[in-house]
């Protein structure tokens, strides 16, 4: 199987879907001439022309609004927000329009829209450019929210998202574009509502999505050296939230750690923990441990930033604490 970077896997998905379906088009800032800030749309304007790859002004509300209109009129837009930080000015379009229109029109219209956008911190970009907002979107009925952590899932889920008749928030991560992995050629579809056990284990369950999946996998490798067998569940499907693999896993391990790059409070881990308390309380041997960013605006200072975001050591130490081993 070919080995691709995450950015090339996404590029492949876009190219394949644009070839397959003429109604698919891209719009966003610098995605055409400049090939995208993170080069995900590399070569697509050249291949598909300026009508299907639109360079837009720096106006996120207009990008999302125009995409919603196009989606309602029968096209399948894929809008790129250069980073998730910039989507805040378009939240009205995302929540009040994209998420609710199909419902408010009694199903009379649909919004087959994908918004691709990378989040995450750790690059010394300061408080305003280090956000992880997937929990904001996952809070809203009417949106689907996915956050893949491997190149294969990135390709398969982006293709599924483009074919979905509902608005899909497709959350990427600035820190994973260079991550490599095997990616199936051609038609490879990954469902938007299925989470996935990425590593089997017996002693403890670790839930993570997007870049934190990589952190969790690294931590599991580290824990194995110390005789701790960790199961890693990829929470790539955040809304609808597929809890089945987590519940099954917790029934086996009785211990759970959630890892997310955003803040803990009101976060993805908080939701997962609540569901576990509801569905598998009698299987828990310890409280669910949530790891997330420190509750401060992301520091610019390199040393502070380094301790503010979750890393492998945080997961390893927490796992051992849950197992009473430190």
């Amino acid at each position, binding site marked *: 199987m070919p080995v691709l970077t995450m950015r090339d896997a996404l590029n492949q998905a876009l190219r394949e879907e644009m070839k397959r379906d003429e109604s698919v088009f891209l719009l966003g800032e610098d995605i055409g001439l400049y090939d995208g800030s993170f080069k995900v749309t590399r*070569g697509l304007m050249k291949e598909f022309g300026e009508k299907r790859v639109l360079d837009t002004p720096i106006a996120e509300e207009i990008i999302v609004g125009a995409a919603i209109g196009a989606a309602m009129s029968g096209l399948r837009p894929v809008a790129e927000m250069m980073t998730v930080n910039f989507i805040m000015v378009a939240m009205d379009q995302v929540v009040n329009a994209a998420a609710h229109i199909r419902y408010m029109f009694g199903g009379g219209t649909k919004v087959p829209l994908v918004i691709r956008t990378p989040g995450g911190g750790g690059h010394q970009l300061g408080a305003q450019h280090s956000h992880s907002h997937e929990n904001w979107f996952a809070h809203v009925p009417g949106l689907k929210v996915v956050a893949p952590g491997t190149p294969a899932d990135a390709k398969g889920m982006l293709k599924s998202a483009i074919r979905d008749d509902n608005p899909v928030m497709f959350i990427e991560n600035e820190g994973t574009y260079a991550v*490599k992995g095997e990616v199936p050629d051609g038609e490879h579809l990954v469902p938007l509502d299925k989470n996935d056990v990425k590593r089997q284990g017996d002693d403890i369950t670790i839930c993570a999505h997007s870049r934190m999946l990589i952190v969790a*996998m*690294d931590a599991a490798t580290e824990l194995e050296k110390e005789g701790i067998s960790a199961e890693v569940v990829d929470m790539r499907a955040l809304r609808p939230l597929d809890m089945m693999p987590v519940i099954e896993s917790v029934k086996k391990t009785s211990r759970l750690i959630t890892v997310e790059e955003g803040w803990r409070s009101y976060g993805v881990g908080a939701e997962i923990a609540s569901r576990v308390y509801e569905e598998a309380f*009698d299987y828990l041997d310890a409280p669910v441990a949530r790891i997330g960013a420190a509750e401060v605006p992301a520091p610019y200072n*390199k040393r502070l930033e380094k301790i503010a975001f979750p*890393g492998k050591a945080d*997961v390893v130490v927490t796992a051992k604490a849950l197992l009473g081993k430190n």
Partner: protein
Amino acid sequence: MANVQMPRLSDSMETGKILRWLKKEGEEVKKGEPLVEIESDKANIEVEAYASGKLSKIVVPEGESAPIGAVIAEIGGAGEAAPKAEKAAAPQEQPEAAEPEQKAKPAGAAPTKPQATNAQAHVEQAEKAMATAAKKQDAAPEPGGGEQYPQGGPDDRTEVGAAAQAALSAIRRPAEQQDGERQRVSPVARRLAEEQGVDLSRVTGSGPGGRITKEDVETAVQQGAQRSKAAPSAPAPAERQTVARPKDEVEVVELSKMQATIAMRLAQSMFSAPHFYVTSEIAMDDAVRLRQMFNEAVSKDEAISINDLVIKAVALALTKFPEVNASWADGRIERKRDINVGIAVGLPDRLIVPVLRNADQKSLKDIAHESRQLIERSRTNRAAAQDYVGNTFSISNLGMYDVDQFTAIINPPDSGILAVGSIEDKAVVKDGQVVPGKRMRVTLSVDHRVFYGVTAAQFLQEVKRLLQSPMALVL
């Protein structure tokens, strides 16, 4: 001699273009002085010199691009001869985006205008820049298949960061608190204990703050199984071997598993809990009358027994005496929040104590119904394991067998048991007259480690008061 490298001006920047050199080759430069103007993907930025000295060589001329980290100029120490530029630039990659003919242009030439209107040219230029960046990226080692932070990130840490502090303090918090009131049991341990009939008060927790974990219960189950396996068989062969009695003098009765457990637990209770006993005689005239009236009013299936009245009276009294509704637990006392009354049921081959839960909150009618079912299930061997666990106080009633009074052994983990004798018709003195009366003697066995004589007497007085004014039991 210092190399001037293409700086990283934005996170998404991969190459930068030299717009203007602000110093000429050969000119002196001071640290902090503006040296060069660079165009990144986001903005044009003036970059300062990081060293003082003579600008000995401009490697990347105006109008050309170079990837991050590439040497774009050299600053020699004061008076130092300019070294060969080719040598210094060699380990760095040549900026491929730069056109060869542009490179040949002399330094200080006017910046070449990019063909901004030609999309095709832009795409090609970007592609070249990407190719350079990609080559660089592929060459770089990937740490653990993970993220590539340019300057080291959270994954390089070996110490725990702020990110996990909150989770860790939540996990470790119980270790700092010792309220000593409530036994900590994890949900899965509690469920497992109930399924396996493990008495949690006998399990020592190994988790944070002494929390009993799944593993602790599993260990207890294993040990319990071993113990009950060993108990009936181990002493028997030894006895038979050492005491060579003729076979017809004794009949050796092997214990059932349950009998072995009963023997073990009662011995443990009797020899570890220092028992003392308090006896009281209760006038049962009103209680007997109340029972008659009650049973006349309800169907036969709903009839109550004297024992049901005693259960209710004891349960209500326990609400006022939490020190009685308690357990000895390894040097601490655990007061139980629930009031669960064990009812001793004697059978020819065994003694069992099913538990009536939350007896203080149940009506007399419900107590009668439930106790009848519990006793029936126990007699017919159909009781579930959970019928036998959770007792906080027990009652043993031999009233139906015409006994005046007796003492009972405390049923662990309780710290008290009430032994109930028969109701007798007696001549009693009332208002100076000898009149007939119904009297019942009860004896309370107490674990002296948990509560003391005065409490025992007061508790008994309360039971007595309730049974002598039994309307309180039906309210």
